[in-house]
């Protein structure tokens, strides 16, 4: 953990060398989800609601998933650019060091300009919370926190799976975008607006539904019956990382250097 902090500090200093470029990038990163959010606003402006969800509720959903995405893009970026590490043969160096491969790859890259994205989602989150007429309790805030953490774990898990694919294919697989960018895009609305198969896939295979839809029902007092399963749903997202880690470890053992 200490080493991880050290990695962050070094990369932060190096990115701060180009300050103007950093600020411009951060502003740009702020604007990307902002334009999506503006689109969302205009849609609600015209239609009023989507399958019984109103704008503030969807905004809460949106901010949680975008915050989780920004955080994992910030911290797990090393896995995203992993294919070049394998293609160059640089991964050999990682293997000979006496530290876990996961930690080293995580520490190989940080994208601090994602702060812009993060800021945007924080603003939306605060706004949505202030607008909703929900009684907030400590328990609810805790569930909210876990929803974000759960999302971070899912995105990181997908990044990791995509990176592990490089052990077999050398090249990165663009297809993982479906589950990262696509998953983010899809999970910004409550999952029950989609067709059954989409909802099922993203609840039981990749548990995005456990990040926002199910606990969201609890937060907004829309549950019927026992609250407990809804409150515990975010845990599924955290558990999702385990198979991903296993695949990763299997991949590392399978790894043969490209020799370059």
């Amino acid at each position, binding site marked *: 953990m200490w080493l991880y902090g050290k990695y962050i500090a070094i990369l932060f200093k190096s990115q701060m060398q180009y300050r103007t470029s950093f600020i411009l990038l951060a502003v740009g990163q702020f604007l990307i989800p902002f334009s*999506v959010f503006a689109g969302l606003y205009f849609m609600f402006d015209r239609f009023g609601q989507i399958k019984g969800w109103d704008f503030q509720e969807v905004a809460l959903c949106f901010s949680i998933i975008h915050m989780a995405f920004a955080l994992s893009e910030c911290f797990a970026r090393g896995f995203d650019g992993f294919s070049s590490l394998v293609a160059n043969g640089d991964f050999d160096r990682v293997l000979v060091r006496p530290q876990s491969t996961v930690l080293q790859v995580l520490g190989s890259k940080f994208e601090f300009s994602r702060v812009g994205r993060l800021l945007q989602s924080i603003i939306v989150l605060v706004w949505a919370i202030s607008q909703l007429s929900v009684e907030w309790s400590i328990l609810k805030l805790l569930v909210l926190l876990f929803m974000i953490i759960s999302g971070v774990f899912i995105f990181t898990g997908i990044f990791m799976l995509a990176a592990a694919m490089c052990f077999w294919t050398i090249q990165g697989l663009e297809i993982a975008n479906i589950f990262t960018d696509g998953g983010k895009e899809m999970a910004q*609305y409550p999952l029950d607006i989609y067709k059954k198969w989409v909802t099922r896939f993203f609840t039981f295979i990749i548990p995005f539904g456990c990040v926002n839809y199910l606990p969201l029902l609890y937060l907004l007092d829309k549950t019927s019956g026992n609250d407990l399963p809804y409150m515990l749903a975010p845990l599924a997202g955290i558990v999702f990382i385990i198979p991903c880690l296993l695949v990763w470890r299997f991949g590392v053992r399978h790894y043969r250097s490209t020799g370059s």
Partner: protein
Amino acid sequence: MRAYISVFKLRLVNGLQYRTAALAGIATQFFWGFIIIMVFEAFYSGAAAPPPISLKQLITYVWLQQALLAFVMLWFRDNELFQLITTGNIAYELCRPSGIYGLWYAKLLAQRLASALLRSMPILAVAFCLPEPYRMPLPSDLISFLLFIVALLLGLLMVVSLSMLMYISVFVTLSPAGSLLMFGVFGEFLAGMVIPVPLMPQWLQNIVYILPFRWSADFPFRVYSGHIPKEEALIGIGIQLIWLLVLVGVGRIAMASALRKIVVQGG
């Protein structure tokens, strides 16, 4: 002219090499298309008043958008050109006997065409065969289809001229990332890539109709589905032509003045 055509051909063949990447791209865009249509469907199912564009027309809009992303996306960046500018290797380009504006234009155009040729056909082929309500409808009639093709190609030329302006701006800023990102984000929103133009509020539509961005995506897509009637489409094509002339003219002037000012340092 020959030089431009050979640069164009070279890039086209080069672009057609990346088939696996294209396949992955197709799968991604397909998924996106589905998700977006489902969201619109959900919005439409609860609409109190009939929206200004029918769901069927909207589905056409979405599939065309996904299939022709390479034609309409503003920030389809060519890092090679940025590197030329920022590293000073542009000096070599300047030694060439053909005009740099035309060469780059041909290069960017070919990249987009190659990418679109690879991706659009499979996406559209599948979209035409999907079960209802996701199926992409045929064009309303032959004439509007022909108008669509003309509008689409003019739109493509407009996108390339717009992105040329972006590359030229790098001569001044030297750092492509930030300004490009902002230009891309606003441009795409105003082109109707985030939400279709007819669904925007009136005041925003007024802004959109003044700016050039919508002519590349929104306009041809709506011509295809018949949302824009034929007479209006003809007028639109005229406006596209005027915009194109203006953008290329401005680009050429800006390029010339940027080139006069640059100092290539040795190395």
